């Protein structure tokens, strides 16, 4: 077994016993990158030199102080997390050369835990997309089938973990941008509760929906990363000062006697039969593990997409107003006066999808339309949240497909925004309600494409999700396949 293909906990064991070193692990990962990155294109920026130096320091630290939570483990960061001194592009031309003079809080936390950073992964521009095709730096490909998309917007992180180009990665999830690519790339991805992981240094897309979370090869690694990144941050007003449990304690507890809600609105026409079959199989697995499945209803599900595509663009058009060519980033040289400079900079600096969403958001907030769009959507959002509150009164977790279909082909949906938006149909409600969700691999299609199942729980119930996902993972006996690259 190559080192790059192991999990965090397996590697930590080997580091602890001295069987391997961080330098060896890091070299293995970069060897893999050299072999497959030309096909996968998971990264925007590689940090090879600093990674090797960090690995050497980690090896010293292990000898001197013993091993920390992530000492010496190569981790990739979605290029939406600000890194002090390393350019952070958010997949956009407008930030092509932006070098932040600060680290995101999650980056500080990973650094403090001893992680080695492999690089900054590709993503849809400003996290707006479901396929990683809107990146200014070109599309990332799905390691399971290079003609297909890896999902998005955190497609680079998902693909990098699946392809062995890092041991684990961070992504961000505004409407499914962690869980959807995790499902399509056959890895574990979690979106924590809003406010659980600091957003400081996460380039904002939609502030009331964005959340950072881990991509890992298994549930145990997810718990390990969550232990490091979760927690209160005084630099964020919406950070929640609630105590963070040790998520590893939830791994072996079992789910005997749990009640699992199956929302009827999530098993609808349009869902791919192979996906549905795989997800139906998970229901049998968790029942086999001692859980009881009941039908629940989330009646406002059909409005989630409409609410999301008002709320997220409204916040985004305001969040993206700072990219004006004045303080940092790209500036068009064509503008003769200020107004022209603004317009030409933003017209050339943003891609089509970003502009589309800025337009929708600006329209939804503009005079005369605010009540009909933004306010109405915010009211329906409250009803969506209430649906979940009522459902969680009856069950411990909710089980749904993560995506309606397996990975689609590159270019298949780029000309039809509505079709593209529909690929997030099962993940969006989670962000609107602020609750945590996890996508776990649950099988493969006949064509060999991974399928994911999504588990949801109430606010701050990440421990419960890890417990459930871990129990499922142990019982499911999903074939340990790897992409052939």
């Amino acid at each position, binding site marked *: 077994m190559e080192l790059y293909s192991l999990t965090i906990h397996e590697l930590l064991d080997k580091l602890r016993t001295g069987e391997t070193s961080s330098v060896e692990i890091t070299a293995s990962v970069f060897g893999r990158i050299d072999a497959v990155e030309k096909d996968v294109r998971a990264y925007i920026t590689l940090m090879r030199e600093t990674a090797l130096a960090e690995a050497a320091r980690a090896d010293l630290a292990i000898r001197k102080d013993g091993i920390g939570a992530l000492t010496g483990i190569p981790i990739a960061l979605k290029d939406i997390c600000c890194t002090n001194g390393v350019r952070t592009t958010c997949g956009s031309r407008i930030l092509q050369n932006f070098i932040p003079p600060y680290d995101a809080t999650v980056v500080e936390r990973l650094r403090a835990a001893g992680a080695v950073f492999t690089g900054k992964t590709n993503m849809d521009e400003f996290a707006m997309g479901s396929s990683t095709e809107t990146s200014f730096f070109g599309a990332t490909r799905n390691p399971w089938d290079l003609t297909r998309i890896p999902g998005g917007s955190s497609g680079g992180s998902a693909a990098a973990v699946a392809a062995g180009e890092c041991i684990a990665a961070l992504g961000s999830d505004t409407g499914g941008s962690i869980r959807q690519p995790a499902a399509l790339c056959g890895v574990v991805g979690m979106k924590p509760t809003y406010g659980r992981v600091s957003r400081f240094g996460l380039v904002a897309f939609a502030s009331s929906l964005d959340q950072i979370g881990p991509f890992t090869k298994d549930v145990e690694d997810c718990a390990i990363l969550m232990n490091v990144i979760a927690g209160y941050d005084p630099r964020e007003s919406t950070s929640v000062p609630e105590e963070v449990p040790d998520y590893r304690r939830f791994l072996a507890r079992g789910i005997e006697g749990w009640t699992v809600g199956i929302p009827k609105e999530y098993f609808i026409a349009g869902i791919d039969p192979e996906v549905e079959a795989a997800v139906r199989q998970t229901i049998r697995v968790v029942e086999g593990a001692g859980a009881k499945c009941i039908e629940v209803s989330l009646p406002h599900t059909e409005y989630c997409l409409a609410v999301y595509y008002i709320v997220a663009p409204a916040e985004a058009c305001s969040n993206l107003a700072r990219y004006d060519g004045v303080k940092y980033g790209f500036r068009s040289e064509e503008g003769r006066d200020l107004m022209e400079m603004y317009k030409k900079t933003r017209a050339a600096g943003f891609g089509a999808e970003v502009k*589309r969403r800025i337009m929708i958001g600006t329209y939804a907030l503009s005079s005369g339309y605010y009540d009909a769009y933004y306010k109405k959507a915010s009211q329906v959002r409250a009803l969506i949240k209430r649906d979940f509150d009522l459902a969680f009164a009856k069950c411990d977790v909710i089980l749904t497909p993560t995506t309606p279909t397996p990975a689609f082909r590159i270019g298949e949906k780029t000309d039809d925004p509505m079709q593209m938006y529909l690929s997030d149909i099962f993940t969006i409600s989670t962000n609107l309600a602020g609750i945590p969700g996890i996508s776990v691999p649950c099988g493969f299609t006949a064509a060999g494409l991974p399928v994911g199942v999504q588990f949801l729980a109430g606010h701050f119930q990440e421990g419960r999700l890890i417990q459930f996902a871990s129990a499922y993972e142990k019982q499911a006996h999903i074939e340990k396949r790897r992409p052939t690259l």
Partner: protein
Amino acid sequence: MEKIKISQDEVTHVAHLARLEFGEEEKEKFTSQLNDILRYMDKLGEVDTTGVEPMTHAIVQKNAFRMDVVGESLPPDLSLANAPESRGGCFQVPKVIE
């Protein structure tokens, strides 16, 4: 014919508010796509939201404060390091025409 939600003129106006500009062909395509999207949003009209408080935050919270303590500012070279154009410690922009 389907109802027009947003005209090309409105698209031009909204683009101006957002400091964007489009070529003619692009504008046509955008107008048609925005109309599709906005028509989809009409679904929300079906929902009775009488008396429902808008939800603007994912979690109910209040009173997050910092104390009135001066911390470190950035060294000026770092404040301006990413600026497309700067002069005399200031960000430089094309002249503002009032």
